[in-house]
C-alpha cells in the first residue's frame, strides 16, 4: 500500500532538499578524503612494531641463571659499566644473522667498559646451546624462566637489544636485527654520555613459526 503524498504537509521544496544533499555530500567527501590520506600513510609501516616506553627508566632488578654452567647474573650489578642486553632464540632467523655482529662488537668494545649479555627467549636450552655451538660464543647468555625478564623489558619478539648506561638507566633499544654499524654508533653515543633512544631496524619474530 503506497501512500499518496498529502499536499498540505509536503515539504514541497526540492531545491532546498537538493542543496541539503549537496552539503551532506561535500562534508562526507572531505571526511572521506581525510580518512583515505590517513590510511594511505600507513602503507609500508609494520603494525606489529610497538615503541618502548622504557627509555629513561632504570633497568629491572633481575637475577637470571646462566645458560651454561652454574651461577647467576644480576642485571643491577653492572653499575659503572655499559651493558648491552640482547634477547634471542635459536628459532629466530634474524638472530642468526646478527649474531656475528654482536660477537664482533662485544670483542671490540670489551676494553672500553662495555659488557654484553644474551637472554634466551622462550627456547629449549639444548637448542640454544646448539645455536652457540654453531655460531660461536662471545659473551655469556642467561635463561629467562617464566619469561619474567621478557615481560619486564616489554619484549614483543626477538631480536630486541637494549642498552643500559653506566647509571643503570635503559638508554637505548634496537628492535629487529642489528648490525655492527648500528651497534657501534649506539655505543659511541652512550660512551659520549648521550641517550640514543629507540630505533627500529626491522621486524621481530614472536614465535617459531611466524
Amino acid at each position, binding site marked *: 500500500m503506497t501512500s499518496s503524498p498529502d*499536499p*498540505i504537509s509536503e515539504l514541497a521544496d526540492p531545491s532546498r532538499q537538493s542543496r541539503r544533499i549537496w552539503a551532506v555530500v561535500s562534508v562526507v567527501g572531505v571526511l572521506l578524503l581525510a580518512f583515505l590520506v590517513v590510511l594511505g600513510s600507513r602503507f609500508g609501516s609494520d603494525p606489529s612494531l*610497538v615503541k618502548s616506553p622504557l627509555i629513561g627508566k632504570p633497568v629491572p632488578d633481575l637475577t637470571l641463571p646462566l645458560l651454561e654452567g652454574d651461577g647467576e647474573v644480576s642485571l643491577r650489578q653492572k653499575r659503572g659499566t655499559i651493558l648491552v642486553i640482547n634477547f634471542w632464540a635459536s628459532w629466530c632467523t634474524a638472530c642468526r644473522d646478527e649474531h656475528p655482529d654482536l660477537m664482533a662488537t662485544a670483542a671490540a668494545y670489551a676494553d672500553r667498559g662495555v659488557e654484553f649479555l644474551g637472554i634466551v627467549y622462550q627456547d629449549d636450552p639444548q637448542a640454544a646451546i646448539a645455536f652457540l655451538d654453531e655460531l660461536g660464543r662471545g659473551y655469556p647468555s642467561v635463561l629467562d624462566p617464566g*619469561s*619474567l625478564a621478557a615481560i619486564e623489558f616489554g619484549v614483543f619478539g626477538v631480536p630486541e637489544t637494549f642498552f643500559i648506561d653506566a647509571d643503570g638507566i635503559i638508554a637505548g633499544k634496537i628492535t629487529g636485527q642489528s648490525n655492527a654499524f648500528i651497534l657501534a654508533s649506539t655505543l659511541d653515543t652512550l660512551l659520549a654520555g648521550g641517550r640514543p633512544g629507540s630505533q627500529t631496524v626491522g621486524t621481530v619474530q*614472536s614465535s617459531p613459526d611466524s
Partner: protein
Amino acid sequence: MSDPLVDTEPAPDAPRPTGKVVVILLAAAVAVVAIGLITAPPRPEDRTKIIAAQLRCPVCQSESVLDSPSDTARQMRELIASQVAEGRTDQEIIDYFVARYGTWILLDPPASPRTIPLLVAPAVILLLGLWLIRGRLRPRRRRPAVPPS
C-alpha cells in the same frame, strides 16, 4: 498492496480486553525475576581473568592475554596471578604492564585527548540519526501551505 491478514487482525478498532489473570500473572512473574536477580549472591570474580582480559597479547596480537594460547600470554597470566596474590590492586597491575609495553597493551583505549573523538563519536552519530529521522516524520502541527482566502 493491501493485505488484511497481515495488517489488521485482530481489527485494530476492536482489540480484545486484557484479562485480570494476565495482569496478575505478568506482575507476579516480573516480581519473582526482580527479587531473584536483586538477591542473587555475588559471583566470585577471578581478578586474574578480569585483568588479563583487559590486556592485549604482545604475540598473538588480536587476542587478549586471557584468551591467547601463546607462551608469553601464559606467563603473563602467571605474573598477574602472583601480583594479585601479593595484594596489588587491579590498577597497579595494569600500570605495571603499561609501563613496560606502552598504552598499546590496553584493549580499551584510555580516555585521553587523542581518544576523545572515538569515545564521543557514537553519541554524535546517535544524535545525528535521531535528527535525520525527525526530518522524515510528518510535522506535528500542520502549517497550511496556502493561507485560506
